[in-house]
């Protein structure tokens, strides 16, 4: 069981650079969001992924993160705990891209982490892959409540992603304006993605009181 993140000197250096950045003019407006991305609830929901993927004994190599935000917790967990060889984050926010590179500078320099600006509901992510490159074997979306149901993503990327395993998270907490696609259960989340082979399905109440649903499947 993995119940913590490894806080090595390299991690400390990279995270410190984000703290410095959000004190400066360019990224000051991001300070609150960086805080929001660093809560115990955020960490717990990412540790949950690592735990359940480990329990399923799935080998993780190439990972696509959809709307992965700063990817501050999930990237080190996937690389350090599950041995992922590279992670590509598909985001829409330029500030997020730049700060995610600071959070993950050590991995970016080793070409293990890359962030692309794209809305994954409008454009296939394989458009961003080099010709002849391998696809992804794991697709993670922990932001399903913020976007159109995942069946659209599967449709526009069908046949190009090496039949990946999907890890999806969402919630029934509809008090926020930007939670435009809440679901009532993990079953509904799996249905939205047309998953036919569900390997894991569960619910967790996070420290902030939010119900979090997760499904893993194809």
């Amino acid at each position, binding site marked *: 069981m993995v119940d913590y993140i490894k806080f090595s000197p390299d991690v400390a250096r990279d995270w410190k650079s984000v703290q410095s950045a959000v004190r400066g003019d360019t990224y000051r*407006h991001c300070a609150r969001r960086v805080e929001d991305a660093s809560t115990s609830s955020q960490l717990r929901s990412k540790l949950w992924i690592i735990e359940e993927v480990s329990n399923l004994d799935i080998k993780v190599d190439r990972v696509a993160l959809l709307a992965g935000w700063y990817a501050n917790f999930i990237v080190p967990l996937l690389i350090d705990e599950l041995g992922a060889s590279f992670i590509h984050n598909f985001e*829409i*926010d330029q500030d997020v891209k730049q700060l995610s590179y600071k959070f993950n500078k050590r991995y970016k320099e080793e070409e293990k982490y890359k962030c692309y600006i794209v809305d994954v*509901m409008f454009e296939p992510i394989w458009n961003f892959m080099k010709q002849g490159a391998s696809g992804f074997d794991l697709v993670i979306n922990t932001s399903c409540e*913020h976007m*159109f149901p995942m069946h659209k993503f599967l449709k526009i990327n069908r046949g190009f992603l090496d039949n990946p395993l999907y890890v999806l998270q969402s919630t029934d907490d509809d008090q926020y304006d930007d939670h*435009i696609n809440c679901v009532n259960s993990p079953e509904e989340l799996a249905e939205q993605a047309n998953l036919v082979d569900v390997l894991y399905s569960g619910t967790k109440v996070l420290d902030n009181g939010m119900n979090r649903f997760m499904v893993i499947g194809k």
Partner: protein
Amino acid sequence: MTNTILCMKWGDKYDQIYVEKLKEQCEQNCSVPFNFYCLTDKPTQPYDIQIPTTLDNYYHKKRGFFWAYRKIHMFNDLVEGNQFLFLDLDVIIHQDLKYFFDLDMEKPWIVRGWWNDLATVKNNYSKNKSTPLNSSVIRWNKGQMKSVYNHVKKNAEIIFFTYPSLDNYMAHHWYDPWSEEEGFLQGLPKGDVYSWYKGNIHPDDMSKKVLREDHKICLFNNSTHTEGNYDEEIKNLW
């Protein structure tokens, strides 16, 4: 080159007086010839053109997302003309509209809400809030906005689900708050258009409910305005 001024009216909240008043303002404030049309769901006047209903099925009234979607139809060559200027019904025109027909048209123009704090715009970008654009005034040449119409038509289900407003959609797909020079749309410069309820230019000139007659147009946009919710303060200023 034919100059065309367009407005739109649907539903019952804006009465015909708004259209007549806008037409009158255009006639008083445009020194070049122009044709005037109103795209409407209930044509009654010689200048009225029926709004198509082809996107109506995508709109969920209870949800209210993308509620100004009918504006998209005006980009589909519905109206004759070469140079188009769209104006919302709730605007006050201060200066000669010839200015808009003389603009360099390398890219279409839209209101850049200079009253917005760009830091807030960026911060709320992924939440689909605090859009820097406002579709109350749009200037384009024939065919120039067709790609916007086609994009909405092709992706209607997702767009109606995702974006609270047309302005927000425009800001995400046709504009870039991080590189404002590089978007498909360009924002009208500071000093052209201001907002009665929100101010003019952040942070230096944010006084609200002030007429600035050296500017071209005053908007009456308000964050509390959603479909079917308008006030009539503009009538006191006509």
